[in-house]
């Protein structure tokens, strides 16, 4: 009994002495979080209701949970395969982006050569250009290379579309690093790529983690590019586009849409909860170091 009473206390305060400050902060943040995730609770609740019940405006708990919506979302909306597509595009673009931008950023940050400042200026200039209107030339080019209806094309375009800022982040970070380690390695006759891979890149972990996170989010959320590329080949749609397409023009299936949304959100949330320690601590801890 005592242990049971003790549990919430330990949850909030751990092994330390309870203080009023921590209690108030916890309460405040708990309230905020409830509000924050209400849309998710609503989504899950809706995915279990019948269409009729949604419009009745009843509370969050469905009268009799309907799992039918999920079956419909899974088969009609192909959420399963869209999910795999999205993962493929995200992971693929992640690898391409990390390799390309870290190498380029390393060179730009630590070496001087003719035309370097011009190149940096060019990257800076592109950061603020809205991506929307570049979609047409990108599509034209992908068509030219016969990539405009393939997952490859989508992955490449997703990689290249937002890379300017990553290059600048890497370049800025590499520039600040002290010379000693690198110089010592050069003295020892270690080759360029080996230095980069074994000495410099590990030092740049904070920025690498930042870039990885930004690119995962970019790839996961991107909409216009996959929309245009997957139009002619619905089989390679990503989640964002798939759900949008589910909206349809002729009929609205609210509960099916909520179920599809839940299907698309739950795995990434689980993944995030499992990996969040690495995700956030990697970023935060690395910045410290």
């Amino acid at each position, binding site marked *: 009994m005592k242990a049971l009473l003790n549990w919430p206390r330990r949850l909030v305060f751990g092994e330390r002495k309870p203080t009023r400050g921590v209690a108030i902060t916890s309460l405040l943040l708990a309230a905020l979080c409830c509000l924050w995730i209400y849309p998710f609770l609503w989504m899950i609740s809706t995915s279990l209701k019948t269409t009729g019940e949604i419009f009745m405006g009843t509370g969050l708990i469905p009268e009799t949970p309907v799992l039918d919506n999920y079956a419909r979302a899974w088969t009609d909306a192909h959420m399963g395969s869209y999910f795999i597509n999205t993962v493929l595009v995200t992971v693929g673009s992640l690898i391409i982006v990390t390799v390309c931008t870290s190498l380029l950023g390393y060179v730009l940050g630590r070496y001087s050569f003719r035309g370097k400042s011009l190149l940096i200026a060019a990257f800076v200039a592109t950061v603020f250009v809205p991506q*929307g*209107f570049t979609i047409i030339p990108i599509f034209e080019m992908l068509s030219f290379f016969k990539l405009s209806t393939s997952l490859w094309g989508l992955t490449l375009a997703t990689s290249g579309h937002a890379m300017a800022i990553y290059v600048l982040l890497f370049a800025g970070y590499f520039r600040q690093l002290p010379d000693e380690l690198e110089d010592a390695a050069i003295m020892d006759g270690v080759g360029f790529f080996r230095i980069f891979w074994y000495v410099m890149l590990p030092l740049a972990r904070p920025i690498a983690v930042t870039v990885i996170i930004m690119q995962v989010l970019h790839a996961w959320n991107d909409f216009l590019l996959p929309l245009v590329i997957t139009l002619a080949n619905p089989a390679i749609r990503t989640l964002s586009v798939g759900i949008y397409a589910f909206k349809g023009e002729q009929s609205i299936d609210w509960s099916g849409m909520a179920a599809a949304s839940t299907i698309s959100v739950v795995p990434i949330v689980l993944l995030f909860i499992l990996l969040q320690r690495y995700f956030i601590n990697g970023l935060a801890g690395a910045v410290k170091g």
Partner: protein
Amino acid sequence: MSNRKRQPRALYLAMVPGLVLAGMFTFYPILAAGYYALFDWSGFNSPKMFVGLDNFARLMTDPFFWGAFQRSLIFLLGTVPLQMFISLWIAVLLNNQLLKLSNVFRTLIFLPVVTPVAVIGIVWTFLLSPFNGPINGLLLDLGLLSRPIDFLGSSDTVMPSLIGVYVWKWLGLTMIYWLAALQTVPEDVYEAAKLDNCKGGRLLLFVILPIIRPFALVILLISAVGALNVFPLIMSMTNGGPFFSSEVIEIFIYRSAFATAEGTRTQLGYAAAAGVLFGLLIMMLTLLQAVISRRSGKKS
């Protein structure tokens, strides 16, 4: 770096993949769009007609372009400060070592960040609905309203609603950046501040903020770039409506390029010109802002 003597050939090799990628998807599209902007071109299979700077001249007097430009700026100015300040405040609260639940809170606040925008559009459209929408329901029950507000359907409320949803979606990310920045503040700074009895807002403003200032600039830049790329959110929530009230520049470009309205034709040349002009205007604003902040920095 100027003392660097050796220029390994591998240096150029190392740049190749990045430059190819950037060339294809960053530089080429912008140059190509700049080229298209000089044509009257409906797109795809139709012939291009060279018109010089006509498209730009037309944009200069197009009230819809300037309206959209203004709304993009409003969106930028509406979201970035909110996002920066609220997330900093939450990050400071979460940074408290004594707060056992901080991991849980952090995760919950981060959830919207990993949720696809299309899902967010669908869910929030329903939440904000004036008919049986939970938010209106709550406000009505509390007696704060006598009749429901049509958040996304009325010109007065659509932009604030979109700004709110946008901040909700991306706040978690900014918060994580702040948390990372806050961890670079050495423990003894807090101890010293405690001895000086410096707490709360003053501690944040005069002690912590100066230390994390370099991070703040990066976070500001990332947030500002994000706030200009709001196409998916607005597209899935309002399509730019009602009556242009949420038509930001990206929607304007999309509308011109893909001819979404009845009786209109695709105008790729015009859309490209709008993109180029907008890019130039933003670049000018950025430069202006940089110059001003450098000057004021020098003064103080």
